[in-house]
C-alpha cells in the first residue's frame, strides 16, 4: 500500500466484500434451488402459506436480524477507519496549500519559514513533491467551482469547495510518481485535469528542497 491508511480502507472493503459475497451466494443459491425444486409440475399444487404470523415470518425476520448485526459490524469497523483518515490528523511534517481552479492544481509551499503568504513561498503547477514516510497536510481551497482532490493509489479523496478551507492529510509509504486526477465534474476541461504527486526518498527530498530554496 502506498499510504498508511490505504490498507485500512482496503481491508474494510474486503470485509464488506466477504459479507455481501456470502449473502450473494446464499440468496442466489436459495433462488436457484427454489426455481428448480418448485417448478411447475403436473399434479402438484403450491402450498398455501401467508407468512404473516410471527412463527412463519421468523423465516425472513431472523435473516434480517443477521443483516442488522453484520451492518453494525461494518459500521463500527468503518467508524474506526473513518476517524483515522478524516478526523484524527497526526501533527504535520509538511503543509502544502492546494488551490484548485479550472483546470489545474496550484501547489503552494510555505518555504523554510513554514508560513503561507510570505516571501519564500513557492508555487508549482500540478506537481506535489513530498517526502516519504512523513505526514503531509493538504490545505484545500478552490478558486471557482467544486473540484475533488483524488489520490487513487493512496486512497484519499477530498472535495475542494470554493469559500472553504478543508484540510486533508496523508503519509505516503512508497516513493514514486502518482497521479492526482480531479474527481468532481468541474467543466469542459474536467477530463484531463490531472496533477502528479512525487513521493521522494528522504535524501532525494532534501536535495529537492535545496534546489528550490538555495539560500536556506
Amino acid at each position: 500500500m502506498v499510504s498508511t491508511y490505504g490498507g485500512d480502507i482496503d481491508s474494510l472493503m474486503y470485509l464488506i466484500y466477504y459479507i455481501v459475497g456470502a449473502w450473494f451466494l446464499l440468496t442466489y443459491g436459495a433462488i436457484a434451488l427454489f426455481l428448480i425444486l418448485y417448478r411447475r409440475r403436473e399434479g402438484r399444487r403450491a402450498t398455501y402459506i401467508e407468512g404473516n404470523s410471527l412463527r412463519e415470518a421468523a423465516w425472513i425476520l431472523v435473516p434480517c436480524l443477521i443483516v442488522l448485526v453484520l451492518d453494525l459490524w461494518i459500521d463500527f469497523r468503518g467508524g474506526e477507519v473513518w476517524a483515522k483518515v478524516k478526523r484524527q490528523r497526526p501533527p504535520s511534517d509538511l503543509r502544502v496549500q492546494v488551490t484548485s481552479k479550472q483546470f489545474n492544481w496550484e501547489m503552494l509551499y510555505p518555504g523554510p519559514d513554514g508560513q503561507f503568504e510570505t516571501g519564500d513561498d513557492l508555487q508549482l503547477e500540478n506537481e506535489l513533491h513530498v517526502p516519504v514516510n512523513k505526514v503531509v497536510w493538504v490545505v484545500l481551497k478552490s478558486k471557482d467551482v467544486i473540484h475533488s482532490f483524488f489520490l487513487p493509489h493512496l486512497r484519499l479523496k477530498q472535495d475542494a469547495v470554493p469559500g472553504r478551507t478543508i484540510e486533508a492529510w496523508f503519509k505516503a509509504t512508497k516513493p514514486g510518481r502518482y497521479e492526482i486526477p480531479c474527481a468532481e465534474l468541474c467543466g469542459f476541461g474536467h477530463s484531463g485535469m490531472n496533477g502528479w504527486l512525487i513521493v521522494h526518498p528522504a535524501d532525494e527530498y532534501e536535495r529537492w528542497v535545496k534546489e528550490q530554496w538555495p539560500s536556506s
Partner: protein
Amino acid sequence: MSSRAEVEERVSFFRRYVFSVDHKMIAKQYLAIGLFWAVVGGLLAYLMRWQLAYPDTEVPGWGFIGPEFYNMLVTMHGTIMVFFVAMPILLGAFGNFLIPLMVGAQDMAFPRLNMLSVWTLALSSIVLLISFFIPGGAASAGWTGYPPLSAKPIYTGINWGLNLWILALALEFASFLMGGINFLTTPINLRAPGLSMFRLPLLVWMQMTAAILFMLSVGPLIAGAVMLLLDRVAGTSFYLPQGGGDPLLWQHLFWFFGHPEVYVILLPGLGIILEILPVFSRKSIFGYRPIIYSTIAAGMLSFTVWAHHQFISGMDPRLAMPFSLTTIIISVPFALIVFAMIATLWRGSISFPTPMLFALGTLAVFLIGGLTGIFNGSAPVDIYIHDTYFVVAHFHYTLFSALFFAGFAGLYFWFPKMFGRMMSEALGKLHFWLTFLLFNAVFIPMFFVGAGGMMRRIANPMQYEFLRPLQPINVSITIASILLLLAQLPFVLNFFWSLFAGQVAERNPWQANTLEWSAPSPPPHGNFETVPIVYRGPYEYSHPSVPEDWLPQDRPTMPTLRQSSGQAAAV
C-alpha cells in the same frame, strides 16, 4: 339514460386520445412519453460509451464528440432516465393504469387534475427538448447540477440550456405533485366495498408510499432550484461564496430530495414484482404485512440518509458516521422485502412466462444493486469509490432493475389488460435473455473499472496513466452496451406487432386474483360493468378451500365450497 359505452362512442377523437380524462389513456400517454425519452436516453448512452472506448474518434452515425458535448451527454442521460423515463413509466404509466383498476374504482379521484399532470409533463418534455437545440446546447453541469458550476454561465459556457433544464425540472415536479394527489386520494377514498387498506395489492401500497415520499422531499429541492435560477439570472449569491453563499447548501437540498427520489422510482418497480411473483408461483406473497411495514420504515429512513452522497464534500466529518449508520441500516427493510420475495417462491408451483422471467431478473439484478450499496454506504470505503464507476455500476443495478427489468415485467404482464392482446412469448423470452446477459456484461465490469479508480464523468480515460490498463475493459463494456441497445429491438417488434396482430386476450389470461383482471380487456372508460365487491386479500393462490389454484378478490365464496374446505385441505 345512456350507458357509459354509448357516451364513449360520442366522445370526440381529441377528448378520447389527446385531452382524455380516462386514467388508462393518460397512462398510455405517460408510457409514450417515457418510451420516447428512453430511446433518447439510450442513444445518449451509446454516444458516451463510444467516446469512452474510442476517445476522440468519430462516432458512427453521429460524428465527433468533444469534452463539452460529453458533459452534456452525461448530464442529460441522467436527467432523462430519472425524471423523464423512470417516473413517467413507473409512476405515470403503471400507477395511473393500475391504481383505479386495483382498487375497483371507475377512475382516479380527480380525472381533470390527472389530465393536467400529464400535459404538464408534456410541456416539461418540450422545454427539455428545446434545450438541446438552442445556442450553446443543453445543460452540462451533471444531473445533480452542483453549483457553483451550475450557478454561473461562465463556468460551463451554457446559459439558456441550463435555465431551461431548471424550468423543465420544475414543471416535471409540478406534474408529479399533481399526479401524487390522485395516487393518494384514489386508494384512500375510492376503494370498492370490502376492500380494506390491508386488502390492497402491494403495488398500490408502493405507489402510495412513493407519492408521499415525493411530496415530502421535493419541496426543499424546488426552493433550491428557484435559488439556483436566481443565482443564474438575477445576480443573487445563494450558492456563490464570493457573495456570501455556500455551494454545499445545494447538495443538502438536492440529496434530501435525491435519496427519497431513488425510492420513488424503486418502490413502484418492486411493487410490480410483488404482483407478478405470486401469480406465477401460484402462491400467496410471503409476509404481506411485514412487507408493508418495511416499505413504510424504508420510506421514513430515506429522509435520514441524504448526506451519504456527501461524505467527502467538505461537510463536517463528524456527520459521516451517523449518516453511514442510517444508510447501512436501511438495508434491513429492503433485505426483508427481498427475503419475502424469495420465500414466496418456496413451495410454490413456478412457471416461467416472460413477465415472470423479467420479475426474477429484477430480483437477481436488484440484489446485486442492494449488496454493492453497502460499499458506498460505508463512509471510509466511499472515500475511495466516491465518484468512480463503482457508483455508476451500483446505481444502474438498482435503477435499471427497477426501471427496465421491472418495467418490462409489468409491460409484458399488463399488456393484455392495457391493449386487449397478448404479446409474443418467443420474442419476449429472446428479449429477456439478451437483455439479462448483456446488462450484466455491461455493468459487472464497471464495478472492476470503478474499483480500479476510474472516475465518473471523464470524457477520455486515456488521459490518465493509471487508467490505461483498464481500457480493454472499457472497450468490452462499450461493445456489450451497443448490443444491449440492439437487444431492445425484439421488444419494439413485439410491442407493435402484438398491438395490432397479437392473440386477443381474455379477461384474466394469467389467472390472477387482483381486481383489474375482473374488468374487460381492455377496460372501457369507467372500467367495471358492475362495482366489484371484495371478499379477501389480493394473493389467495392455491387456497385449500377451492379446487382452482386462484381465488379472485371479488369472487363470493360459495357455501358449498366453505363446507368442503376441510376435505380440500386434507388433499
